[in-house]
């Protein structure tokens, strides 16, 4: 490959046949017996096409890739709605203990009491933190949790003999909400938010009829604002027999302060990879436990961990004894390794610690909001919760949102969430989280002010950005018009 250095090459381009750790190992097959054991037509006839590389080169390869990846460990990541807080290392150590990492999911009850205890107590604690009665720990992600909850709603109405097909949600909702709703076969009705960025109670009331199944809401909403009329919102939905669902993506603003269950939500999900510090992993794994009030508990996925008193001790086991359950939404029991990390995190902080997290998250967001309000436009400039939305200001920071985001990368700062929520044009959503120091935040403010100045005096710097990263402004049009989704030898 011309012009590509070793550092830039793909594994396939570095492959040297015979260099791998296993290259000289003889075949393990007993050739005499092979034909009797399995038909020849079932076997591979050609090479697979996997690369071969020495261990040393493999380590170098992935180490370079790691260097070319921003991470919470190295960079400030003020991504709104993502809660990129510090991922504690003790969680990793405990998750890799043999007594957890080497458990086979088919092992019987006596062998896994410790694991079941972790799950049981996590379920109890989540219920308490959120004001719900029961949680299912099965779903693998927030969107998975949403879909699970909507299936629960379907079964709930079916059991009551009610035909309800409508999901209502605000135009500020996260894309997974309508996607999950449509996948469950519901009709999706979107209602416009008020000019204050909150749910339009009148419009909601109009949609609350005998056909409404669920109203889905993120609270605080995706503008970082607490829905001040939340009690009325839940009430108006309940009055016509609908259910309320809380997208728990913003739970980091609420712990120890206000519980979704107390707000009137019937169901919710939690993103452990947001609020509960499990690492994002560049796209997972996470977990999306689903919480419900008691009138919906019978529909939760099976199996569930139950606690029993047997032979003079407390005993835990899996139970399928829930005849109205929707079934299972995942193979085995859920993302145990991730749930374990969340349990460790909760224990490391305790109730007071979790409350402190949420309070500090709110403090940090408001601090940034105040420091930036003179340079950027803040459409809803009142005390926010753990995040806020701003846009470029025509005079003080006249750059395009995308260019501002790219320029931040040059300073080693990951861009905030951009162009979401859709209801604010050119939105920049900032969520510092509670783990970031004043120094980090002050530097972020200084960089943004520098960028604003560049936008006024030297806009090419923004348009050309980023110039200090490994690559700059990928041709996404070409990538979508002529997708190349696997390595093709000699291409480019």
């Amino acid at each position, binding site marked *: 490959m011309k012009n590509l250095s070793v550092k830039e090459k793909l594994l396939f381009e570095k492959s040297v046949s015979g260099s791998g750790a296993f290259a000289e190992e003889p075949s393990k097959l007993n050739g005499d017996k092979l034909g009797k054991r399995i038909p020849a037509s079932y076997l591979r006839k050609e090479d697979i096409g996997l690369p071969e590389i020495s261990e040393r080169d493999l380590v170098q390869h992935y180490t370079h890739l790691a260097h070319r990846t921003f991470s919470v460990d190295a960079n400030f990541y003020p991504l709104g709605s993502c809660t990129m807080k510090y991922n504690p290392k003790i969680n990793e150590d405990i998750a890799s203990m043999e007594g957890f990492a080497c458990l086979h999911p088919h092992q019987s009850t006596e062998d896994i009491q410790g694991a079941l205890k972790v799950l049981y107590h996590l379920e109890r604690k989540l219920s308490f933190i959120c004001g719900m009665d029961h949680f299912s720990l099965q779903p693998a992600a927030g969107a998975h949790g949403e879909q699970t909850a909507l299936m629960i709603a379907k079964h709930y109405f079916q059991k009551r003999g009610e035909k309800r097909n409508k999901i209502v949600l605000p135009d500020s909702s996260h*894309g997974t909400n309508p996607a999950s709703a449509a996948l469950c076969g519901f009709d999706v009705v979107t209602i416009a938010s008020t000019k204050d960025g909150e749910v339009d109670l009148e419009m909601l009331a109009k949609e609350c009829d005998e056909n409404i199944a669920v109203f889905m809401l993120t609270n605080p909403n995706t503008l970082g604002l*607490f829905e001040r009329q939340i009690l009325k919102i839940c009430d108006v939905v309940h009055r016509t027999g609908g259910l309320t669902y809380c997208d728990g993506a913003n739970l980091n603003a609420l712990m120890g302060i206000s519980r979704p269950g107390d707000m009137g939500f019937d169901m919710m999900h939690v993103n452990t990879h947001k609020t509960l510090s499990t690492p994002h992993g560049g796209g997972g794994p996470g977990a999306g436990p689903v919480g419900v009030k008691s009138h919906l508990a019978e529909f939760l996925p099976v199996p569930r961990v139950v606690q029993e008193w047997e032979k003079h001790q407390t005993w835990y086991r899996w139970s399928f004894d829930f005849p109205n359950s929707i079934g299972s939404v995942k193979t085995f029991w859920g993302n145990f*390794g991730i749930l374990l990390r969340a349990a460790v995190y909760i224990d490391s902080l305790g109730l*007071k610690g979790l409350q402190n997290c949420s309070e500090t998250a709110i403090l940090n967001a408001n601090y940034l909001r105040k420091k930036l309000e003179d340079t950027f436009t803040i459409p809803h400039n009142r005390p926010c919760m753990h995040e806020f939305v701003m846009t470029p200001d025509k005079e003080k920071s006249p750059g395009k949102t995308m260019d501002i985001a790219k320029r931040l990368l040059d300073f080693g700062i990951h861009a905030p969430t951009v162009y979401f929520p859709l209801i604010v044009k050119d939105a920049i959503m900032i969520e510092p989280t509670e783990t970031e120091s004043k120094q980090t935040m002050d530097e972020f403010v200084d960089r943004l002010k520098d960028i604003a100045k560049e936008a006024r005096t030297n806009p090419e710097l923004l348009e050309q950005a980023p110039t200090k990263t490994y690559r700059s402004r990928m041709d996404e049009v070409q990538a979508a018009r002529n997708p190349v989704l696997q390595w093709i030898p000699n291409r480019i």
Partner: protein
Amino acid sequence: MRYIPHSPETVSEMLQTIGVSHFEELLSSIPTEIRVKDRATGADSWEEKGLSEIDLSRKYKLLAEENTPTSKIDSYLGGGAYEHFIPSVVKHLGSKPEFLTSYTQYQPESNQGMLQALFEYQSMMCRLTGMDVSNASHYDGGTSLMEAALMAVRRKPGKLLFSTYLNPMWKRILKTYFSETPEILCEVTAPDGVLTEDTLKNVDGNISALIVQNPNYLGITEDLEALAAYVHSKDGMLIAAVNPIALGFLEAPGKLGADIVVGEGQPLGNALSYGGPYFGFMCVKKDWMRKMPGRLVGQTVDRNGRRGFVLTLQTREQHIRREKAISNICTNKAICALRAAIYLAYLGESGLKRVAEECFEKAHELQERLCQIEGLRLSFDKPFFNEFTLRLPKEKHAPDILTQLRRLNILGGIAQEADYLHLSSDITIAVTETKNQEQLDRFVLAWKQVII
């Protein structure tokens, strides 16, 4: 305070900057009725303050010790999760904090590393499965199978056929997701343990797809090529759900006629971890590229003409298409896919073949030795990869045998009676390269003891 970097003085400074005298003022938008007042209520065994690292470690070490991991006991359990040796490099490279604590690559310039790693993963999976396009992971084997089933039904409404020996957990997932149209789920009996045209031809009506798990839940290998030919003759799709380690040895399903290949990726470099996190893989022919769920990493160039990678075809996804999205998947299993890629790269062409061969040979040697024990025989005399099902003599109770083996520090296998009433005397045993001669000898000896 744990993980929070402010001193009380810093907090005061910040409150001043914000322009409030008390933090409480920032919470004025929250109705007082729903403010948390009494924390202690219902918090039975919680610590208000949180545990120190020493106490945390102690607590969880004790909890871990209440479990019996496969590192302390010889496990022959399979059934959808397999104990393979995870090389040290996979653990070290796969847990690099740069990968672990990064985010989805919406800003490609700052994430070329992870994007390239996922592109390499996609490329390896395409070669392994003989398909054109792989996504960057799904939640697990069962949910990726469910998504494949949805794709088939969207293409052509009709029945989804599958063997009775499809993984029971996957059957349960299908039942849950297709609960509105249960009539399309068509479980086909397999009297000889495998699907054949004979067993399928009794199904009438439109066929959307035939789902073939290979090897199936009892460990038996299915004839993918013949089954693909059959379902294509009915204008249906073949969805192959495969064990990726077996593909080091078995032919790529794409070359045998599969339209979609899915499966559980855990055996590739991911710990058993009591059932998760695992990952599902999905590979399709190129016609399906714009209709498949999951993240896709594509190759492109940057403004300076240098090769790089981006998430592409995002208009299929929820953050753009919303209610018209193909799937709602957002967070998937990127780190698990990364570990799989590192595992495959470390083993390489020859290594994966060797691991697969070793699993095959050890399983066959063991099966032959066990079947020399009076009373034990294969439930179905059919080809298998590294998992096989034995039938016990009628008077023996499978769970009891397993209990006795457990007392000899052996996890003997999975008793099938929980899921298959007609297989009440059957135990499925999985063998991987992790077992040495001594362990295999001990296993045979233990069986000899318990079976008399």
